[in-house]
């Protein structure tokens, strides 16, 4: 309904990076709490990757602001003025998560001990990370003038997508590729652990598909969003939606993971299995980005 697209690439990329950074931290925390040392490579890498991603996202947010604040750097602190605004809440969560994830990253480098403090830090960070991933969706849901975003399913869709992309990125980092790029941080990829990650990612992708169907279902009841819905499903953006978000981002990773691995399992070629898993992770990342993009843009038409 609105005529100007105010939020475009910067915001879409930020929403993706926010979800991704939160997702990598969630991966790190869950791998540490649940794995108890078994998936150390993943928790370590998740912690190291999370805060740089979040900081890049925050810089994009600052670039998107329409009022150049260079004259008075403290002007930006006005963002904390309204406690019910999702931007205020989100900024608090984001800053908290960046702080906690920097702390965990530092403590990993300092080879920290497995104590109750580590658990507490990870649990606090986990709550913040889920908050960041969810708020990126709530931000859109509460924008009343854009009915296409007005579904309570959207924040959960973004959260699951964030967790899935985070998992995929951590998986990618612990691959031969990641080893070559960050030789100092990586541990030799463990096929078994990667397999577990892939399985969890498959569950998340399935959940994402279900949530996507639920999201479109709830939106289809909103009469004012009908035009946007048509635009997304059969209009100009439909190639991106069906081709990139649904096929490349969700269906192909799911099916390729399942049948590709089955096929190569028979021929016993570990290298090829690894390659397939890496490809699916990469596709998941692409799909996650375009999911944010189409939803942000279509909502403002």
């Amino acid at each position, binding site marked *: 309904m609105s*005529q100007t697209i105010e939020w475009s690439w910067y915001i879409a990329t930020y929403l993706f990076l926010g979800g991704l950074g939160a997702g990598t931290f969630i991966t790190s925390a869950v791998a540490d709490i649940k794995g108890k040392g078994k998936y150390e490579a993943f928790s370590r890498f998740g912690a190291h990757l999370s805060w740089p991603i979040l900081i890049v996202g925050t810089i994009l947010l600052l670039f998107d602001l*329409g*009022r150049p604040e260079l004259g008075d750097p403290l002007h930006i602190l*006005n*963002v904390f003025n309204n406690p019910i605004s999702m*931007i205020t809440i989100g900024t608090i969560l984001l800053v908290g998560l960046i702080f906690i994830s920097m702390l965990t990253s530092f403590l990993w480098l300092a080879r920290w001990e497995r104590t109750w403090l580590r658990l507490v830090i990870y649990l606090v960070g986990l709550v913040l990370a889920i908050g960041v991933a969810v708020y990126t969706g*709530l931000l859109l849901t509460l924008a*009343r*003038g854009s009915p296409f975003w007005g579904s*309570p399913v959207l924040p959960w869709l973004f959260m699951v997508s964030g967790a899935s992309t985070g998992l995929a990125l951590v998986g990618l980092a612990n691959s031969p590729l990641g080893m070559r790029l960050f030789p100092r941080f990586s541990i030799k990829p463990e096929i078994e652990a990667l397999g577990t990650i892939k399985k969890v990612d498959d569950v998340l992708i399935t959940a994402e598909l279900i949530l996507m169907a639920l999201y479109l279902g709830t939106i289809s009841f909103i009469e004012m969003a009908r035009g946007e819905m048509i635009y997304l499903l059969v209009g100009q953006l439909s190639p991106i939606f069906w081709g990139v978000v649904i096929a490349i981002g969700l269906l192909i990773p799911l099916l390729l993971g399942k049948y590709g691995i089955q096929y190569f399992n028979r021929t016993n070629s570990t290298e090829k299995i690894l390659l397939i898993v890496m490809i699916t992770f990469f596709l998941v990342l692409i799909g996650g980005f375009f999911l944010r993009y189409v939803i942000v843009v279509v909502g403002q038409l």
Partner: protein
Amino acid sequence: MYMRISQKLRFAYAKWRGGDKMVRIPYAVLVDLRKCMGCRSCQVACKRWMDLPAEKTELNPEWTNPTDVGPNTYTVVKFVFKENGKKDTGIWRFAKWQCMHCVDPTCAGVCPTTALYKTEEGPVLYDEDKCIGCRYCVTACPFNIPKFDWEKRKVIQKCTFCADRLADGKKPACVETCPTGALSFTSRDEAISKANEAASKGAYIYGKDEVGGLSWIYISDVPFRDLGFPEYGSEPFSLFWRNEISKFAAVGAIFSLVLAGLWLYKKRRTSLEKEENSKKEVIK
């Protein structure tokens, strides 16, 4: 720059002179679309009082011109042609469109900096010294009114309800200039009672409860859907906020219950399978 100083000075002047001139009650403008003839004097008066530059307009199939409110246009008169079934015949209706100055405004609710705020007397105002330019209000406003001025001053631009004139004991510029009496400036209570009266005689009204009530209340003889007014429920933003958050929490609870159920089911099945397998082995 000239505009900025002039507007600030005028606000300061009104504040210095006013205060005692103005009775602090919620005001409203009653728009009787049955009386509007589409002369667009309100558009011109608004431009004059607000010192807004002219906009290059284009010929378009609809007669609304400029097509929408924008950084340099705080109000437009929407021209709507309603066909009556026969070929090429119908009626024209004209609907003035501007910031509705909601009673519980969404823009102020979502604004992280409180740069947009609601005043006691009705106007929803904008403080550019607080604004950081996130444009959340632009995407969130139910009527798509606030517009970000990218070209000149990098501020949000929208109707101010002529808060400076109000403080000086005057009517808004558009009301002052309306030649047909379609616009009338009253207290909000009076506007509502007049609207109710019209509604009881069969007219359509808008703004009494939409998004928790507006400070611009419309009376029309054609349905507002035909005029292109969005249809909203009566929840004000604070209630909308609470409802959306609880719906979101409910969805999360249901989804996690389903997931937990599936997980338990799968766990039970694998344990049963294991049991059966071990039994088979014993039999063998």
